[in-house]
């Protein structure tokens, strides 16, 4: 009998979880860090049907609108992580130096409890990326952390621009050159992968153009063989896809900019980009942006000559910079990672918080919708008990599209949604921080793939 009740409860929860996708909420009397328009004390924020409707004093909403008293609390836009592998069942398709056609959006895992843990760190949007095993990896997916749903589709941030993962340096060299004895084994080889794939993409586009012109007019006109990899390259060339490139060393960063110039591609965010500080003027001139770690370095040779002052140097050189996690652990305290730029380079509060809000939003092409508290933007909010850049700040509540997904005072301890019916005991596994290993999180699944029968 008890089981039946539980069963029923579970069903109800499931139902509630999938029923609504936007909500309304009034946040009263908080210190509102808007990011783009200063910090407003004792201010209310009203979210109506998922959108920020108004920001001001003494706002009121209908009686049925949930109200949160934020007196003494700090209200900031939901944090955005421009580099994550959360909520993905597959990170790397490591079988080829180019896999432009694959898309991690096909492997979204809404059941990943990591999403909840990220919410508990104020993160509302993340860029779920393909790994860095291949020079041209797969397409990525920008997701909203609507935890509780079983439907992968509900995680997608509809309308967010398409993005694709590129990778330079040691990872593709190790997987393909060292691992399989094929190109690329050097940074020279990596350049040629890009040149080859972009060139093939150009020719593919041309072939289709020719076909489309002769189709119906010339009886022998035959369509080129459909090729999803080259379709994707063509879309990059057309400017429909933003490149996010895993990179570390200054030389390789410059190399890719040269390749892109030759092919007329200009939308790129360099990821990790540990030596970005060395070529900050070039990045700024190209219009490339940078998404960096706060302080990761020396875990592999290509990040040996790094500095934790990277974000500060890039910012002060006019490069749009964000701080990312690339880690199930770091994503839980990006506010703290951003604060490190105050120790290492003395960024202002606004500059530091931009690194995890409006800047990553710009890099993902979603800055018109999220990344700051502005009327008309989406209702993604993180509420802290202290200034979010303080080490003592504890996230209190996280809101996505006007719905509360994390509430420190309400939530159960065990927030898994998909329960393994055969699990006896919670399996204990130390999840070590990925920088302890030779591989970064970007290489998730690669060794398994290489070594699996």
């Amino acid at each position: 009998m008890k089981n039946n009740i539980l069963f029923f409860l579970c069903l109800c929860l499931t139902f509630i979880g999938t029923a609504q996708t936007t909500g309304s909420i009034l946040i009263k009397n908080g210190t509102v860090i808007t990011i783009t328009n200063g910090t407003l004390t004792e201010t209310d924020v009203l979210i109506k049907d998922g959108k920020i409707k108004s920001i001001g004093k003494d706002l009121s909403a209908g009686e049925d609108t949930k109200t949160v008293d934020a007196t003494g609390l700090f209200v900031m836009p939901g944090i955005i992580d421009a580099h994550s592998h959360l909520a993905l069942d597959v990170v790397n398709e490591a079988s080829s130096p180019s896999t432009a056609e694959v898309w991690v959006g096909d492997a979204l895992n809404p059941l990943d409890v990591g999403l909840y843990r990220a919410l508990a760190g104020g993160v509302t949007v993340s860029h779920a990326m393909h790994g860095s095993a291949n020079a041209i990896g797969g397409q990525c997916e920008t997701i909203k952390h609507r935890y509780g749903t079983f439907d992968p589709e509900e995680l997608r941030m509809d309308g967010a621009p398409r993005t694709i993962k590129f990778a330079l340096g040691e990872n593709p060299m190790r997987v393909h050159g060292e691992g399989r004895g094929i190109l690329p084994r050097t940074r020279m080889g990596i350049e040629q992968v890009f040149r080859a794939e972009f060139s093939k993409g150009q020719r593919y586009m041309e072939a289709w153009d020719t076909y489309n012109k002769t189709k119906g007019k010339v009886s022998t006109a035959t369509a080129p063989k459909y090729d999803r990899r080259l379709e994707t390259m063509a879309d990059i060339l057309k400017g429909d896809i933003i490149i996010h490139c895993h990179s570390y060393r200054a030389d390789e960063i410059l190399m890719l900019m040269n390749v892109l110039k030759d092919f007329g591609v200009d939308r790129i965010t360099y990821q990790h980009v540990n030596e970005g500080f060395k070529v900050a003027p070039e990045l700024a001139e190209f219009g490339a942006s940078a998404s960096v770690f706060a302080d990761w370095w020396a875990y592999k040779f290509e990040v040996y000559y790094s500095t934790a002052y990277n974000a500060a140097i890039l910012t002060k050189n006019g490069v749009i910079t964000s701080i990312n996690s690339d880690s199930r652990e770091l994503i839980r305290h990006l506010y703290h990672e951003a604060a490190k730029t105050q120790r290492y380079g003395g960024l202002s509060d606004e500059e530091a918080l931009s690194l995890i809000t409006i800047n990553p939003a710009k890099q993902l092409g979603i800055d018109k919708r999220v990344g700051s508290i502005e009327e008309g933007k989406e209702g993604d909010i993180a509420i802290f008990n202290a200034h979010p850049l303080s080490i003592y700040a504890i996230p209190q509540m996280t809101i996505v599209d006007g719905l509360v997904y994390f509430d420190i005072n309400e939530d159960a301890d065990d927030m898994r949604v998909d329960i393994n019916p055969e699990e006896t005991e919670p399996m204990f596994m130390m999840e070590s921080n990925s920088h302890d290993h030779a591989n970064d999180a970007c290489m998730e699944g690669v060794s398994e793939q290489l070594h699996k029968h």
Partner: protein
Amino acid sequence: MKYNILYILLFCCFSYQGIAQTAKANSGSFALNNATIVTVTKGTIKNGSLLIENGKITAVGKDISIPDGVTTIDCSGKSIYPGMIDSGTQLGMAEVNAVSLTVDHNEVGDIKPHMQALTAINPNNVAIPVTRVNGVTTVLSVPTGGLIPGTAALINLVGYTPDQMYAGFKGVAINFPSANKRGRWDRRSEEDRKKEEEKKLKSLNDIWEQANLYAKIDSASQSNKSLRPEYNPQMEAMLPVVQGKTPVLVEVNQEKNILSAIKWIQKNKINAVLTGVAEGWRVAKEIAASKIPVITGPILSLPTRASDRYDTRYTNAGILHKAGVKVAIRTDDSENVRNLPFNAGFAAAYGMGKEAALKAVTINPAEIFGVADQLGSLEVGKSANLIVTDGDPFETKTQISHLFINGWQVAIDSRHIQLYHEFLDRSPGLRK
């Protein structure tokens, strides 16, 4: 903002003397005046002075007399804290963890107590200055891998030889056997894992038995040389352990394993410290009752189980502390040991409180390692390991302006800082 620019300018003047190398450390006598002195053990002194002579703290207080010829440093608006101690790292033992030939903490074999961390400390490891400029002045470097990875060493982060750096504690590290998966990639079946656990536990008991016998024969042979046992490097290294002279560092993380480790420690009457203890919060009472101290961390880490509350690792240290356990905090890192203050800060925020968290990175580890007469607080007679800050040392934005280790004034300089100065305003810039 203005403050920041001013600060950077000051900073540049101070440390722009040499680009390629770190500035030399100064010795001598120093008086740090007008400071808020957080002694940790003897309260906080406002507007006080602290005197450093011959490497030691020779006076702390409000109205101390400053001898002539002492370098004075005005610390108005600043605070002095003891240098922080990280109770578990691989600092100095690995240059680049992905490049195996630069990694010296994981020797071949399973039972290797004779592997000495101190031997493999590279005093010129590039991460050492990076670490100390964040206020971490002393670390325990611990070998890794196998059942008995080796003998850890406590080092001060200044010096050009390991002996110069040695801070007075060595201890054998043990990975207490467990049947847990080692990671996602661990494909061993549950049964195999359990078998291996049993095998390892038996192996551990055998070692103990053997080591006790070896110690007995060894002591008998003091008066009768003919009884001298065969040379056995492992057993030699185990001697101080079975004699109870130095604590053993028992790495254990899972609830069930923690309980068995405590039983094992008590049964064998071992002088031990528990390390890791990720699931300590589940058995805090039991640990407290055993009176065994705990070194836990990293605090900034994921819960051990998917079903756990998201913050169990943040709150772990606080729960243990409140249960009455003596807690020290570690990062378990090699290149980012500089995050120790932030680990302590998270522990403080999530229930431990600032005072206890500060102790967990100062006096507690000093006591656990038996070096509290030298380290861990600002008291007369102790080594001058201390930092001068413009605020709470755990706060992320806090800046450290002065650093003393073992009485040496160490420059606030590291490769990270040097690269900052070189590249903030690169020259040549874009022009050819």
